[in-house]
């Protein structure tokens, strides 16, 4: 960067003072250059991969664009289609809301429950912790393939075992009622990361709180309600927040499960996204199919703008409430 000429101080100033000032200014410039240098990767990255795309998305959402011919201005047509005509949008939104309202809380509660169980174990904590954590390591594509096989309605081990118990298992990924619960099960299986976070938080709950509660005659449930939960509530909030953010981008599992569960060859796969009956058509899946299957990039951009509005609202809400956990945790760590 070019250095601006240092403004001359008043003549009256004695030489040494001026030199000191100059030195200080020089130091300040060097500091600024240093900051700029350190920040430069992010500055470039943020501009090219975030700032510019946002502006570009807003523009493209007002055009018809397929990458082959230049964007053609269509005004608000894409938004009209989005809000009034596209009957796939509402199922996609509903499915995504389902994830937030049902799958996320289930996962958080499950992770919490498993972590709680672990804190009570007297033996083999390390072993159990490893067992519970392992599924979280399975790559999503692999885990989903595994689950589609395990939950095959006819020959999958789960339904075979249920059959031996005299229960006719559900159709799982092949039923619109069960496909989302199946995905939720898959999510609960891979809950290891959350579980570790909860475990660390639970271990951190000060012992004396329990002891004083015990003196007050609190039972196990009361201790959970009045000591454990309040103490680790920031962690629960964190888990919910992460879960909600992840729901907004839920893609891989839905894509793989739908395309594999139909049992149809890839040539039919245009039909497969959302299988069965659009029950696994989540908002990102629909956006992908409009943008990168049909190359309705203008329309996909309009969908992206809607997603931006929703995500921004959620993010701002989180940021407002997060001063609790983002800024304080750093200072007050163990």
């Amino acid at each position, binding site marked *: 960067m070019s250095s601006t000429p240092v403004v001359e101080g008043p003549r009256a100033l004695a030489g040494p003072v001026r030199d000191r000032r100059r030195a200080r200014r020089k130091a300040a410039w060097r500091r600024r250059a240093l900051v700029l240098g350190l920040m430069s990767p992010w500055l470039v990255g943020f501009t090219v991969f975030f700032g510019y795309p946002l502006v570009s998305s807003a523009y493209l959402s007002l055009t018809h664009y397929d990458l082959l011919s230049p964007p053609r201005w269509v005004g608000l047509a894409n938004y009209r289609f989005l809000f009034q005509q596209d009957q796939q949008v509402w199922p996609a939104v509903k499915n995504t809301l389902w994830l937030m309202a049902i799958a996320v809380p289930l996962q958080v509660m499950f992770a919490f429950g498993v972590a709680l169980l672990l804190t009570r174990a007297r033996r083999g904590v390390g072993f159990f912790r490893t067992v519970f954590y392992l599924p979280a390591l399975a790559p999503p594509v692999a885990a989903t393939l595994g689950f589609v096989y395990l939950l095959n309605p006819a020959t999958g081990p789960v339904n075979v075992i249920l059959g031996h118990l005299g229960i006719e298992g559900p159709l799982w990924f092949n039923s619109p009622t069960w496909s989302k619960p199946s995905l939720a099960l898959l999510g609960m299986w891979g809950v290891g990361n959350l579980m570790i*976070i909860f475990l660390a938080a639970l271990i951190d709950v000060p012992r004396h709180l329990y002891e004083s509660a015990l003196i007050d005659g609190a039972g196990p449930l009361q201790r959970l309600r009045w000591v454990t939960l309040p103490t680790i509530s920031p962690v629960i909030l964190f888990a919910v927040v992460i879960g909600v953010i992840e729901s907004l981008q839920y893609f891989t599992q839905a894509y793989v499960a739908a395309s594999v569960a139909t049992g149809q060859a890839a040539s039919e796969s245009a039909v497969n996204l959302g299988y069965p009956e659009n029950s696994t058509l989540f908002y990102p899946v629909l956006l992908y199919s409009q943008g990168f299957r049909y190359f309705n990039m203008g329309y996909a951009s309009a969908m992206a703008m809607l997603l931006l509005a929703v995500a921004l609202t959620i993010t701002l809400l989180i940021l407002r409430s997060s001063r609790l956990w983002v800024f304080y945790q750093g200072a007050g760590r163990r």
Partner: protein
Amino acid sequence: MSPRRKKFLIAVADHSLLIAAAIMFLAPFVFIVLTSLMTNNQALSSKLWPDPFQWGNFAEVFHTAPIWRYALNTSIYAVLATIGVLVSSIPVAYALSRLRWRGRDAVFVLVLVAMMLPFQVTVVPVYVLFSKLHLVGSLWPLIIPNFLGDAFSIFLLRQFFMTIPEEYADAARVDGCGELRILVSVFLRLAKPAIAAVALFEFLFCFNDFFGPLLYTSEDPSNWTLSLGLAQFRTIYQVQWNLTMAATLLFMAPVIVLFFLAQRAFVEGVTLTGVKG
């Protein structure tokens, strides 16, 4: 009943819930392993135990698809991206945590926003950009952005740098070190666990990534990663279930091995994201 036996049974009863949960967590792995050893006909039947054990399935997988090619591509992606993230995010995190400058907090908020917004929001223009650069079809669109800072890693590292007491830096300053020297000699050393966690997460993210490769490399099978290749097993090639499960296991194996080698880094890293973050 002998007292030892009794003690054992009590321990089992005491942990019965845990044991039941552990069985449920392990069962999918067990069934995947069993299926990977079956014949195809058996995989399509309701029998659960392989008969006979068909160990050849694991070798067979390598004939159904260019697994080595996929593995190589995955490694290229994951290794380069991890290097990129470390090289670009550490300085940014340092500037955001240890240097005082105007607008720092505002920039940090921007980092948070970038971290929280779904990547689908920007995906269309970014794709257009890479297609104009004639890079779609290659691994570069997946790798390049990592050299320009990753919001999550910046956030994580920044949080960790904040916790390092100022005295260490001061001591180095007294010794006459410049800021860069302080970053390299003091912070990198003290922040090793956080850096290891960031590297681990980035590596795993790339190893598992499906959307990125699907978007950018799917039209060129010679650039497919393991995720993408495996997902096409059932749909394009209609590979039999037994082989698919064998491939699934092979795909999981490296991560699980990595986990046992670096268990501490894993657990510390995860804890870092949650509690300390």
